[in-house]
């Protein structure tokens, strides 16, 4: 009876592994097909294959970068900027991505009116050069190191209180505190601050929730906006100071999904 149960369990595990392997193989195949299609200039097919990978739940900066490239070659600037922005959140230091993102931003017709100040970028430099995941992992690592050191300081109170070790200890305290606060800020930003990209070539931003409301201003594909509220398939967007209004939900795509 016991042997039968063991056999059944082993069979189940092998079955799950085979199924997982098949799924992974099909995803890999789709990815390779996407690369081949891109290199052959078949950008529609490349977009379709990379999109399959994304829909299977893969959340990877390189995949998003490839999708951005395929959309840009397809002359779909809105979606190209969208996927580059998503990739940038996962691998902010990648030089190829930064180059292509700058290139795509250069093609956007609307001038960015609100830029992050260089002072802010210098003061909080770590949040611009590290990805969300990296900040989280580093904050956990530094936090554990700090508490371990605190523990050993309690036990070996005299040995671990030299000048040099004190510097290390207080550095660990400061770095872990800063990283943890940044981590929580990033979670807040991820959950509550919705940024989106305009998808159509040109779209009117209106004063109300209908097509015949007064046209306030127009935006073009690839422009980044902040979403303030959502109602009846319309979203209220903020572009810059004094430039906000309503737009159809289908005309934008949220970056941080």
């Amino acid at each position: 009876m016991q042997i039968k149960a063991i056999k059944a369990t082993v069979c189940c595990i092998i079955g799950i592994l085979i199924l997982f392997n098949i799924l992974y193989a099909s995803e890999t195949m789709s990815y390779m097909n996407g690369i081949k299609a891109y290199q052959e200039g078949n950008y529609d097919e490349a977009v379709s294959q990379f999109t399959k990978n994304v829909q299977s739940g893969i959340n990877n900066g390189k995949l998003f970068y490839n999708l951005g490239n395929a959309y840009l070659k397809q002359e779909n600037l809105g979606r190209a900027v969208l996927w580059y922005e998503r990739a940038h959140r996962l691998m902010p230091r990648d030089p190829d991505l930064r180059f292509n993102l700058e290139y795509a931003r250069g093609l956007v017709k609307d001038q960015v009116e609100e830029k992050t100040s260089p002072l802010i970028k210098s003061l909080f430099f770590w949040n611009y050069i590290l990805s969300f995941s990296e900040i989280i992992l580093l904050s956990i690592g530094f936090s554990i190191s700090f508490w371990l050191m605190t523990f050993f300081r309690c036990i070996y109170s005299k040995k671990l209180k030299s000048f040099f070790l004190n510097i290390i200890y207080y550095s660990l305290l400061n770095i872990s505190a800063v990283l943890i606060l940044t981590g929580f800020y990033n979670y807040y930003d991820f959950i509550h601050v919705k940024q989106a990209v305009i998808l159509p070539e040109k779209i009117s931003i209106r004063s109300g929730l209908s097509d015949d409301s007064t046209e306030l201003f127009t935006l073009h594909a690839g422009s980044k906006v902040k979403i303030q509220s959502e109602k009846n398939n319309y979203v209220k967007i903020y572009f810059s100071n004094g430039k906000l209004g309503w737009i159809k939900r289908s005309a934008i795509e949220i970056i941080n999904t």
Partner: protein
Amino acid sequence: MYLNFDPCFKKSALIILIIFFSSSPAFGADVRATVDNTNISLNESVSLKVIVNDGGCDVDTSLIKDFKVTPRGESTNIQIINSKYSKEVSHNFLLFPIRKGHLSIPALPVNQDGKVFYTQAITVNVSDSPSEKSGMADIFITADVSKTDPFVSEQIVYTFQLFQAVKIANARLKEPEFKGFFSIKIGDEKTYRKIINGRNYSVTELQYVLIPDKAGKIRIEPSVLTGDIARAASRSRTNRGFPFDSFFNTRQLEPKQYITKSINLNIRSLPAVPETVKRFSGLVGKFSINSEISNEQVEVGDSTTFSVTIEGEGNLIDLSRLDLTVPDHWKIYEDKPVEELNTGPRGYYGRKTFKYAMVPIKSDDYVIGPVSLVYFDIDQEKYLPISTEQFAVSVKPSGDPNKAIFADDVQTENKKSLLPKKITVKVIGHDILPIKDDLTAMKNQSHMPLFNYLVCVGAPPLLFCFFTFFLLGYQKQINEEKISRKKALKILKDMSVDRLPENELLTSLYQSLCFAIRSKAGGKGLSITSSEVERILKPAGCPEIIIESTAALLEEIESIKYSGKRLDQADRSDLASKSEKVIKELCK
């Protein structure tokens, strides 16, 4: 058994019941849709009303595909007739047809309190708008381009015209996006009058210059004009002939939409540049070139200005520099080009002047020019060279020593210039970098959920508190054991076996022994019985023999103390030495 009511009471009850039921609201929704007209032309609109009895609801108009739907609000009508209460809510929409033919307004779902009702389907016959040239149409719009097969970079003009025989209010024009073109509006809108088939129209005209970016077939989407036209109100129409019509005549605004036809263009690539052409300037259109020099007789160090002007129609805006060959021993200072460009009915026209300040540094006779460039002529459809005339300039030695020094400086500078010049690296092409083909792109990089992060960040301080608490407890126990040991030995040391009264001796021995037991096993309390000794000492890892001897000694002390037995000197010494041995053993 029957109840006998008074007939008068029966009548009264019947009347009350009738009034009660007749005044109660109607249950269940009555939903219907109506339109004001089922035969319209392409530039007219249909007013759709979805009327629902009894309360509010949601009307889903997303099923209407043949019309552009614009909501026009709601209106409510409440009636109480013969004590009968009824309420109608009208949801008003304005529908603009997208194409001609028999267009359908499908049955629209109306959601009321979770129940879905449907209106009836309606068919609207949409016919062509009246011909523009017939003079029948009150208002019409047209769009045209000056050329349908231009070359890349050749400018064409897009003209939009609004003809109105009646006034249009709240006019809103949605121009095409001009995708694939560089576009710019030419001046302000023009207004003039035109008679078509005997009818006087006011014409408003807008023009755009379009310069195609790339070759291929491009479609310019239609321009859409929406607005309201004043019409006589329906009441006055029905009462034709009423003498006070003109006085009481009320007019109402009727929304209208007008659409131009889309325009298909075939953008041609420029022909291949012939091998004889060194460099194509990029100009497409019709151009001429001329030049002038301010002074043909100069001294060394004197400046003369050489100007080259290109004039004509076309993309002059794209010309950024000229190929100017400078003779040796001349220093040249290039000025910013001066543009005098205008937009007219044929697009961009005007002139662009490049000015160069030239300073000779050696006396001689020189030839300045000619300056040549090649442009693409759109009339002849071929590349044409144009060039300026030559100027003979005579340079004489200068009598001014400052100018001679300047000339020497320039010559020194020129010698320096024999070294390879540093060139600013310019970007000459634009493209994106290639895709990433490694399989690490299949690895998931999702960040940690917030709850997990809270656990990971919160666990180290919690663990720290836990271990610290544990350590403090342990430390405290160790300290208590040390204190008990010290006390046990101190009592033993201070005790004078011979002189102490018997009772105090036994108490001291008992206390010392208890402290010794506590020093081994920890804990509090100094009233330990012989039966508790094993329970206390065994978990502390004390050898069995010591436990037994300790228990025996404690029992002996207790029995002497409580039995009232008198101890002689030998007994006292024996008991003290036994106690000392056991206590020291426990305190090791």
